[in-house]
């Protein structure tokens, strides 16, 4: 009996080794392709940086640069362009690596599936990344503007804006990955509709107080106006 077990174990070990040996050229091809593209990415990013610095790209971009740096404050337009070039090459490297893996391996189905799904993953990651930046930017903009308008519910507004964008982005990313199917659409619709309905009810029910408070403020405005007129900031 032990001989049978030993034989079966040896057979399965042999199959694993054969499998690894079959996959090894594909993995090596993938790593090699990725390495080559990493070197190319580094080379091209250095070239692009030197070129953009030579043509004074940041200065020439003028007011456009201001808009760009508002969204990504720590980066100059040159460094952003350099990073885009670098990561573009890395992404191409991954795609070429996957196709090299497919060519070298005896399991074309896996790589074919990966190859078709990879753009979805990249797209979803990009969506989520952009959505995150947008949510953070909008939340901060709403918070600062609301504070400067003396709105006491500034934080609530900012948090609401942030989560609306995040929920919308997550639903879009999941949809892009084909995860959850219609459940995500339905859940998002219910959640979004629920938020809007809740806001509408809150505004509708709370507006009585709001209107009365506004009227009270209007009644006491002459005093405040006198106060304001005495202060001149500019």
């Amino acid at each position: 009996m032990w001989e049978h077990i030993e034989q079966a174990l040896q057979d399965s070990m042999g199959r694993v080794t054969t499998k690894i040996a079959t996959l090894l050229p594909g993995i090596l091809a993938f790593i090699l392709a990725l390495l080559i593209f990493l070197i190319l990415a580094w080379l091209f990013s250095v070239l692009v940086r030197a070129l953009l610095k030579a043509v004074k790209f940041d200065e020439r971009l003028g007011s456009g640069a201001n808009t760009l740096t508002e969204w990504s404050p720590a980066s100059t337009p040159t460094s952003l362009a350099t990073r885009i070039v670098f990561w573009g090459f890395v992404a191409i490297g991954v795609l070429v690596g996957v196709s090299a893996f497919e060519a070298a391996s005896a399991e074309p189905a896996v790589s074919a599936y990966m190859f078709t799904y990879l753009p979805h993953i990249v797209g979803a990651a990009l969506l989520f990344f952009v959505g995150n930046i947008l949510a953070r930017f909008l939340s901060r903009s709403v918070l600062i503007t609301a504070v400067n308008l003396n709105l006491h519910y500034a934080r609530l507004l900012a948090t609401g804006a942030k989560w609306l964008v995040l929920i919308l982005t997550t639903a879009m990313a999941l949809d892009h990955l084909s995860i959850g199917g219609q459940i995500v659409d339905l859940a998002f619709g219910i959640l979004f509709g629920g938020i809007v309905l809740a806001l509408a009810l809150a505004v509708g029910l709370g507006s009585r107080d709001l209107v009365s408070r506004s009227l009270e403020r209007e009644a006491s405005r002459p005093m405040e106006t006198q106060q304001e007129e005495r202060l001149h900031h500019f």
Partner: protein
Amino acid sequence: MARIELPEETRKRVEAIGTTEFVLGIAGPVHPQDLRAKAIEWISSLATTPLKTVIVYMGVDERAQTRPPAGVIEFVPYPPSQGDPSTGPWMEIANAQRSALALASLLQAKVCAVVHSDLAALLDPASRFLVAPVFDGKFDLVSPIYPESKYEGLINKGLLAPLSRALFGRRVRFPLPFDFCASARLLPKLVDPNPPRSQPGAQLLWPSNIVAMEGGQIGQAHIRASHTTQSDGLELSAVLGQLVGSLFQEIEACAAQWQRVRGSQPAEIFGAPPPEGETTETPADVKPLDTHPLFDSFLLGSRNLEEVWRLVLPPVSLFELKRLTRLTPEQFRMPDELWARIVYDFALAYRLRRIGRTHLLGALTPLYLGWVASYAQDVGSTSAAEADQRLDRLARIFESNKPYFLSRWRWPDRTN
């Protein structure tokens, strides 16, 4: 030289005129007949012998373009700037001032006076003090001192003037003037400052700061003109962002130069301040101001913007601000030293782009209102002269804290 674009007709007109002794530049649109009526009389009051003068103004005058140069006083219109109107009135005025200075530079004027388009300066006899010291050749720039009550021009009083004085080393009361006079030596520098600004068209003009960095002589003159800027519909945070943002840009551009400046030099003052009865101070200004709304804005900011302030301010300043929120409005005083360091930290964060610049300048507004509340409590029952002394103390504190800014500028991560 100048990067100001001038139309072909204007250039031809300038070439036909050749050179001139004096240029009067009007920084904004003006009616030519109104200008003619006020400017000719003002110019004739400047010197006993007629000055060869060119008046440059914003507008289009076909007759002025085609008429051959003949008289002692010539009129040259320049076109309105193509700037973005959403940038606000200050930017439009700065662009117009640059156009006037560029034309003066082309005309090789010995002296150039730039005045606001409401022409209020031309109606004031004391405005000759703006021009006379430059004609004498002793000064490169004369900046105005406008009559203001203690509650007027607070952005300038609390931030622009003390920060400019501390960094650029000249005690100029209005570093962002509507009217000023410059010498021929400094004209090209004002049009095309060195080091070059990255966005020349989108920046305000800070004549005294530029002249200070060029080592020029600066004087000041009391004039009795007060100007109103079309600021309807403009939020305080937007205006603060525009004015302070522009000064922060200037600081970033001239970093190599202002780091070498130590202390400050007084700028000689010409003319006499208006007598007590003639100031814009009303009896209401003498009464203390209710600072509760300002204090509330500061409190609201400190409750909600701490996460933004944490990216900009060091822990010591945050702790101090936290302590201030526990005071009652009557007890509330923001120490000048804390305010000076806050301004310096915001200038540094502006340079380092720790957060978006619009956000950064927006987050400064509640802190500024906190300082205004504190200042209003201090000067509530004092005279205008005592309020001036209070502002001088603030400026000296900005100066004494300059080493802090220098150290943070050079080693930004050391404190945080």
